[in-house]
């Protein structure tokens, strides 16, 4: 057993002159136990839907486990998030969403007054759910993960220019969606 890149790894063999390091599945389980809340939350902000988020996380973790069995992954959390973002961008692109379900926050059920539940954050959340998957992914990586445009381009496998254009379109669209709501509220 040796330590490499913050992860303990098992030397399983020698190929040519290089050591083959493969982390054990127990270590993957440890990683999942620690990272799961954050991954589920990331899936939720990415998809905007609890069931889709759980599907996305388990799909990404399944792929990551298969990759984990074959080779060492230096930054497993980044790896899983990358798989999630790309799965989301491709999967949701190929599935027409006939009905957009905009869920209430799980914790909001404790509020008795309906008007109190519809606060500013819910309005923006609903507006985010109307974005195309790619634009939403860019917004989530930018404002939830606080990644730079360069890092977003790296995660999504697209150019920095595409990140900029997708981001600008998304913000413009959000501004368009939120503007009438603001007017209505001021009118009230």
């Amino acid at each position, binding site marked *: 057993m040796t330590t490499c890149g913050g992860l303990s790894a098992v030397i399983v063999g020698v190929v040519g002159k290089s050591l083959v390091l493969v982390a054990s599945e127990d270590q993957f*389980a440890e990683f*999942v*136990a620690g990272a*799961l*809340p954050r991954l*589920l*939350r990331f*899936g*939720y*902000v990415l998809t905007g839907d*609890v069931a889709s*988020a*759980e599907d996305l996380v*388990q*799909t990404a*973790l*399944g*792929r990551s*486990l*298969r990759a984990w069995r074959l080779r060492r992954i230096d930054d497993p959390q980044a790896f899983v998030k990358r798989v999630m973002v790309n799965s989301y961008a491709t999967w949701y692109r190929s599935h027409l969403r006939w009905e957009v379900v905009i869920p209430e*926050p*799980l*914790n*909001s059920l404790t509020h008795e007054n309906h008007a109190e539940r519809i606060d*500013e*954050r*819910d309005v*923006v*959340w609903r507006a*985010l759910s109307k974005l195309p998957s790619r634009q939403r992914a860019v*917004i*989530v990586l930018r*404002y*939830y993960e606080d990644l730079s445009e360069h890092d977003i381009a790296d995660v999504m496998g697209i150019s920095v220019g595409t990140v900029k254009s997708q981001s600008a379109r998304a*913000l413009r669209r*959000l*501004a368009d969606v*939120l503007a009438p709501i603001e007017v209505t509220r001021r009118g009230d």
Partner: protein
Amino acid sequence: MSDLEDRIRAALNDPRREIPVWPDPMPRIRRVARRQTLKLVLTSAIVAVVAVIGVAAFVKSLPAAGNGSPGLSGGPSPKATRPATSGVDGLPAVGAPGYPAAIYPPAVRPRPAGAGAVTACPAPIGLVRPPSSARATAIALIDLWETGDRAAALRAADRAIWPVIALRTYRAPKPRPTTEPILYAGPLKAAHRNFGVPNPSAWISSSCGAATAERSYLVVTGSQNEPALQGDWVFADRAGHLLLYFRY
């Protein structure tokens, strides 16, 4: 825009939006990983099977190596027939639209006694003695060979000579037919040659059988004084369709 960005950050980091963590995630993840592996294996297997079938079909469509006449059947018997050239060089397969199998059956391999003089023979099935009016039709078919396009040449020929047509280059049709004189037009067996020019009747008989030779029609073109430049065109009549099948 910064106000909008702040609102987006607040919405995305809304602490009320949390998902309950799975109590024991690993069995679930292992199950998903197994399903993904199975899907990958099945997809790979299907792709491999499709690829093997495609390669096998391609190899099957290639001419058989080692014999002079690609894809011919084993002998002049009509039972032992196989597509002579189907799928090769874009030639129509047996039974392809416009080429009924009754008129364009697969060619057959010539008998060894022919010693290579004829590379393929017309299937004996459906062959009849050409009528007396065959002369005009045969001359028209020769003109078609010289001036027509590839499709027209295929329709005017038996599959025995299709490989030759496949090798010919058909450009724009020539403006006028051949003006070579017709030296002979009649039954193959009745033709007599002088000046030492080989008589194709003997070749056809030994290669394709006496019955086929009996039912063949010969047209000889060229100059009487230049036997080496004369052309022999041998036809067979199958169900009323005169078809060129040998040219020398």
